[in-house]
């Protein structure tokens, strides 16, 4: 099986699905001539032409609405946000239009579309370019929200998202694009709504998604050296969340740490905590702890940015705490 980057896995998924269904098109800023701000759409313009790979003006609200309209008229748009930071301008179309059209129309208008792009902080991009929106999106009924951590999941989940007849928010990561992993070049799907146990252990359950799964895995490796083993539950899909996968693990380990990129208050981790305490109340040996970004806008200052981000040491510290190790 070929080892390729997360970026190329996404590119492969786009190419395969655009070949498979000619109603699928990609629209966004710099996706065509420029080959994608992060080169995810490399070669697609040349392969599929300008009607199916469309550069837009800088109008997140507008071109997201264009996607909504195209979906209502029977196409299957993939709307790329150069980064999810800019999607803030488009949320009215995502929430009030895409997520509600099926319901408001009494079931007449499904919205088969994908909203995708990098989410979360990269390096020193400052306050306006370093945000993680999964908790906001997960709040909204009518949406599905996906955040793959590995190249394999990236390809399989993007293909699943494109084939899904519902609006799917697909969260990538600038820091993930260059990560590598084994990716079959055949036509496989990773089902939306299913978490994966990326590491099996006995003592603690680590719940995470997207980029932070890599941190959780590192933490599991490090703890293993002390003889402490962790279940690493990769949510993969944030909405609908695979609650069974989480509770099954916690019922086994009795301890849980949630690691996420975003801010604390009303974050994804808060919802995980809610599920865990509700369904595993009698199993828990310690409060569920959370690792997340500091409750501050992201600073440009290098050392402060590092301090603001969730990372391995913070994750290890939380794990030790739920184990009452120090």
């Amino acid at each position, binding site marked *: 099986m070929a080892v390729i980057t997360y970026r190329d896995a996404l590119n492969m998924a786009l190419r395969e699905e655009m070949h498979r*269904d000619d109603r699928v*098109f990609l629209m966004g800023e710099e996706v065509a001539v420029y080959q994608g701000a992060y080169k995810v759409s490399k070669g697609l313009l040349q392969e599929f032409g300008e*009607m199916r790979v469309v550069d*837009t*003006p800088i*109008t997140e*609200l*507008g*071109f*997201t*609405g*264009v*996607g*909504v*309209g*195209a*979906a*209502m*008229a*029977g*196409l*299957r*748009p993939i709307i790329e946000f150069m980064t999810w930071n800019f999607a803030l301008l488009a949320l*009215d*179309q995502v929430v*009030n*239009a895409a997520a509600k*059209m*099926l*319901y*408001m*129309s*009494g*079931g*007449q*208008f*499904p919205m*088969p579309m994908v909203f995708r792009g990098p989410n979360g902080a990269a390096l020193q991009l400052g306050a306006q370019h370093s945000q993680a929106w999964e908790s906001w999106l997960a709040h909204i*009924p*009518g949406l*599905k929200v996906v955040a793959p951590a590995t190249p394999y999941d990236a390809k399989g989940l993007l293909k*699943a998202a494109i*084939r*899904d*007849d*519902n609006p799917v928010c697909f969260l990538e990561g600038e820091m993930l694009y260059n990560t590598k992993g084994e990716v079959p070049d055949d036509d496989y799907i990773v089902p939306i709504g299913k978490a994966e146990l990326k590491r099996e252990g006995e003592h603690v359950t680590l719940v995470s998604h997207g980029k932070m799964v890599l941190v959780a895995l590192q933490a599991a490796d490090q703890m293993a050296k002390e003889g402490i083993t962790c279940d690493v539950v990769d949510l993969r899909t944030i909405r609908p969340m695979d609650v069974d996968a989480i509770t099954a693990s916690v019922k086994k380990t009795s301890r849980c740490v949630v690691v996420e990129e975003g801010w604390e208050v009303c974050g994804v981790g808060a919802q995980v905590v809610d599920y865990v305490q509700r369904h595993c109340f009698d199993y828990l040996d310690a409060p569920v702890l959370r690792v997340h970004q500091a409750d501050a806008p992201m600073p440009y200052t290098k050392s402060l940015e590092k301090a603001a981000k969730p990372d391995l040491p913070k994750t290890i510290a939380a794990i030790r705490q739920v184990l009452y190790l120090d």
Partner: protein
Amino acid sequence: MSTAKPRKKGEPVRADANVAVGTSAATNRDLLYSMLLQRRFEERVAEMYAIGRIGGFCHLYIGQEAISTGVISLLRADDYIITTYRDHGQALARGMTPRAAMAELFGRQDGCAKGKGGSMHMFDKQLGFLGGHGIVGGHIPIAAGVGFAIKYRGGDQVIVCFMGEAAVNNGAFHEALNMASLWKLPCLFIIENNRYGMGTALERASAIHDIYKRGASYDMPRGVVDGQDVHAVRAATEEAIDRARTDGTPTLLEIRTYRFMGHSMSDAVSGTYRTKEELEHYLKRDPIALHRQRMEEAGEITPADVAAMDEEIKKIVQDSIDFAEQSPELPLEALMEDILVETTS
């Protein structure tokens, strides 16, 4: 010359009637019928709202019927329409049955959206009626997207996007019109300029008052039209449709009209932001009265004919109320339905 198909009594002007611009008696009769149906329907809607059969926000179209009827009478069955929360008139003009419309307003399961949408969110996929949208400006980019899909498939349909004049100041309008022109999307952007956005007069919201001129920012064909004259509306619309079908060129039409009722059922007809005198001035140009008068003068219809048509329409509207009354609400489990579909492609 009219090419209108024979229309069964009581059947509203069909979207596929494909009436050409012209003044044939049959066409004019269809137009009168369509406008009168909207008028009588909404007069009863106001009653039904007053006695609590209809809830939420309810925006009447009374006074603007020449626009819905004039524009939509020229559409093909495979064309698309999208509009605002003020959507009853266009839905009926497109051929939604009064029963489906009234049941929706009552929130019943035989409504055009099973009662889940309500007054502001009428939808009918069969009719290419893409809704009733509640966020001012929000549906304009959606219209451009429908135009994009038409072009993508190489079709010659058009999408008509109705909006109020206040929406023209919103960023969504600007972004959508630029893309529609840049990409040559077959869209008709119809501004129903009824002079007020809720309580705000056009002059207090827009830096220019001939708002069709904003089309110039997008190099888009544009024009201003008398919205009380259904023939004028049709003339301008036919040109725009031709442009759109030929090579996808979009058009911006500012159609000047007036809202005879309050902004919504919870707004007084006049008082705070517009005077009784102003209202009365505009009431003199009732689109239905003007069209009817023209027909009578041309000898195309007699007062007796009109009275008969009116009676027939009132019956149809009463029937829609009776129908809505007995239509049930969706069962409670429907609350959690239509959120997502199970299918994939």
